[in-house]
């Protein structure tokens, strides 16, 4: 019979000894491969993977080449203006990746915490996995495509290729640097008074930016960004300057990837305070609503607003685009692009898998004598108000610079908000019934669906709501304010019909059982 070692016995194996730094790093890299294979094997529609990757590759190739063939490419007019904006685009991409990483508590997970708890996954593996998953985000992809396309247009076919290489490296460098900052902020957040410290840092950044903007020094700041140096070297074609820029980027990538493991380990040693605070807090009981739907809404609302990823997400989503509107001095006609994007983002925080709010509690919820239509209505109401809160915050901030709208602008914005809300609601509730996932939304890093599925959802939502926004942008410029109402009615009717069809799926007992069992799995 095997027995444990006595205090005088020499250990016969080094299996439990702590490895050195290099072997540990090598093991972490190997583990990323194991986890990736595991994740790929658990993808439900594996046949769609090659198609999805081919589509993304095709879009990237088109974005890198086609703009170079557009009229005016690599000429003095518009192409030159675009080239001048490149340093700002580089910096904006960095800010985007930092905000995304910090708000998601260090980035996405290759293996969800509750699933990975039994496996010896090191924080280094977690860090590398988060880096790999960072591009699987529609905001990351769209920004990347905009920069690549702009470079192709600004430089033309002859000079675009070397710049593309440098830009791709810059995107990787930004992601790696953002990861370092995200882990650092998470490590700070998990210390005593960490939440206060993080809020102070964020407030200080916002204040500094506000001061720069109010004092009119924003243009000076943008003209002197460190990215100007990099853009100057990477857009001059092959040569020593270009090589120098590339070498700099490679060094930044290597240093950031290695350095990121340090705060990742620091963060992993401490419990997540935000989640612990919400889970151990005392909630004063409220009076019950007089109606059944009101009571269900009340418990659903609690599920949303007590979730860390949703609270952080809605803050970033509401405030971020609003600040962009202020800094970009957006008019109401151009601000019509915002409600759709914000509503889409709101739905992506939980709405695309709306039934996951209850987790395994959905089994008990479904044993209660509530009519399925009431349950559906309550969930749709909670999702709609969640999306509307973010949209209203954005529009309130946009109003600071855009001022009082004309009647046509006001009607167009109001109708647009109504249309995109129902549009997003219909899509989210439909997907929630079609493809439910068992997800624990406790962690700040949780997403309601796997990364690949989220890309599909976000692309479709962004595309449809952007088109709607552009259409209402045109209507905001019209002379007659009634036009917006006239065009909104059929769009609302169509989205309401789609929402009704999603409701019918939920009302079917067989379909409902499938959703419940999948979410509670």
């Amino acid at each position: 019979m095997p027995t444990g070692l006595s205090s005088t016995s020499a250990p016969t194996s080094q299996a439990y000894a702590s490895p050195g730094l290099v072997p540990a790093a090598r093991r972490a890299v190997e583990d990323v491969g194991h986890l990736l294979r595991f994740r790929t094997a658990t993808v439900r529609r594996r046949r769609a993977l090659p198609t999805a990757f081919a589509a993304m590759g095709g879009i990237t190739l088109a974005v890198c080449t086609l703009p170079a063939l557009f009229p005016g490419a690599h000429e003095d007019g518009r192409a030159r203006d675009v080239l001048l904006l490149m340093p700002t685009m580089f910096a904006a991409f960095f800010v985007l990746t930092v905000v995304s990483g910090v708000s998601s508590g260090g980035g996405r997970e290759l293996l969800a915490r509750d699933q990975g708890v039994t496996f010896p996954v090191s924080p280094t593996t977690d860090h590398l996995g988060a880096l790999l998953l960072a591009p699987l985000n529609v905001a990351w992809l769209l920004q990347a495509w905009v920069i690549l396309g702009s470079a192709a247009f600004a430089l033309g076919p002859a000079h675009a290729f070397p710049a593309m290489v440098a830009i791709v490296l810059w995107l990787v460098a930004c992601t790696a640097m953002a990861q370092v900052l995200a882990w650092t902020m998470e490590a700070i957040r998990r210390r005593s008074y960490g939440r206060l410290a993080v809020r102070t840092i964020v407030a200080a950044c916002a204040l500094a930016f506000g001061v720069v903007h109010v004092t009119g020094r924003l243009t000076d700041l943008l003209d002197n960004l460190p990215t100007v140096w990099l853009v100057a070297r990477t857009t001059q074609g092959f040569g020593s300057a270009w090589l120098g820029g590339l070498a700099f980027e490679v060094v930044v990538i290597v240093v950031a990837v290695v350095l990121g493991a340090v705060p990742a380990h620091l963060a992993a040693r401490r419990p997540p305070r935000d989640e612990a605070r919400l889970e151990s807090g005392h909630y004063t009981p409220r009076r019950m609503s007089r109606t059944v739907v009101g009571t269900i809404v009340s418990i659903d609302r609690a599920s949303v607003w007590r979730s860390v990823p949703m609270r952080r997400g809605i803050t970033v989503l509401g405030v971020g685009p609003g600040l962009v509107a202020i800094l970009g001095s957006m008019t109401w006609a151009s601000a019509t692009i915002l409600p759709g994007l914000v509503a889409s983002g709101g739905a992506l925080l939980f709405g695309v898998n709306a039934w996951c709010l209850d987790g395994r509690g959905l089994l008990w919820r479904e044993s209660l004598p509530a009519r399925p239509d009431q349950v559906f209505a309550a969930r749709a109401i909670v999702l709609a108000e969640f999306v509307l809160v973010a949209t209203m915050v954005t529009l309130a901030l946009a109003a600071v610079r855009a001022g009082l709208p004309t009647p046509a602008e006001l009607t167009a914005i109001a109708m647009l908000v109504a249309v995109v809300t129902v549009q997003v609601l219909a899509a989210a509730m439909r997907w929630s019934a079609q493809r439910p996932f068992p997800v624990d939304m406790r962690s700040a890093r949780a997403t309601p669906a796997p990364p690949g599925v989220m890309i599909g959802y976000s692309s479709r939502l962004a595309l449809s709501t952007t088109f709607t926004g552009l259409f209402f942008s045109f209507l905001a410029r019209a002379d007659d304010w009634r036009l917006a109402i006239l065009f909104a009615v059929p769009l609302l009717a169509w989205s309401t019909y789609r929402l009704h069809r999603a409701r019918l799926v939920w009302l079917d007992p067989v379909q409902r059982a499938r959703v419940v069992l999948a979410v509670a799995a």
Partner: protein
Amino acid sequence: MSEPVVDIRGLHVRFGEVEAVAGIDVQAHAGQATALLGRNGAGKSTTMRVLAGLVPPTAGSVRVGGLDMRTHNLEIKQISGYCPDVGGLVPRATPWEHLQLSARLRRLDDWEDRARDLLERFELGDVAHRVTGGFSHGMGRRLSVVLAALHEPRLLLLDEPFDGVDPIGVEATMDVIADARARGACILVSTHLRELAIQACTDVTVLRGGSRVATVDSAEMAGEEGARAYRALLD
């Protein structure tokens, strides 16, 4: 004998190509506590989910209190209380909010005193206003039993109520079952803990591979003799 509260005849449940329940017949009466025993995958939890109105039967007839599950799903949910086998709690809602929802949907009046009493009996009074996401497994199980029993249902469905529960919780659950029997409710307890099932129930139904293989008096399953008989039924 009176009409059974639970009357399952030829129940089949299929999930795609998997047949989770393959023709089960179960009858259970008022004042009777029946244990569903069997190995993992025997169809116990699926049968309970069908009775709770969560999973519609693929074939067969399921009647509760004389009502057909297909046509009176909501009415059956009014008179039954269900403790699911896994989780069963909304992670970011408090126990009190769970109780409020159950009370509102079942139109209960003056339920607060009974709710407080149950929470105290299950030693959950101190955490009544904390979200359940931070609960231990045992606390979650105990709260699930409280939720199932709050409205004194005619049919009490307890799926693995003893799993990971400490002795005080087990005792409180036994009391809930005894109280329910005393007031004439029908109780179904699904578990793989034979000794506790025998202690809590009057009858034992053994399931294997999605089918019922035996229904016996719980006394016949007690002791070493009963353990051998049970193992023989499982093989």
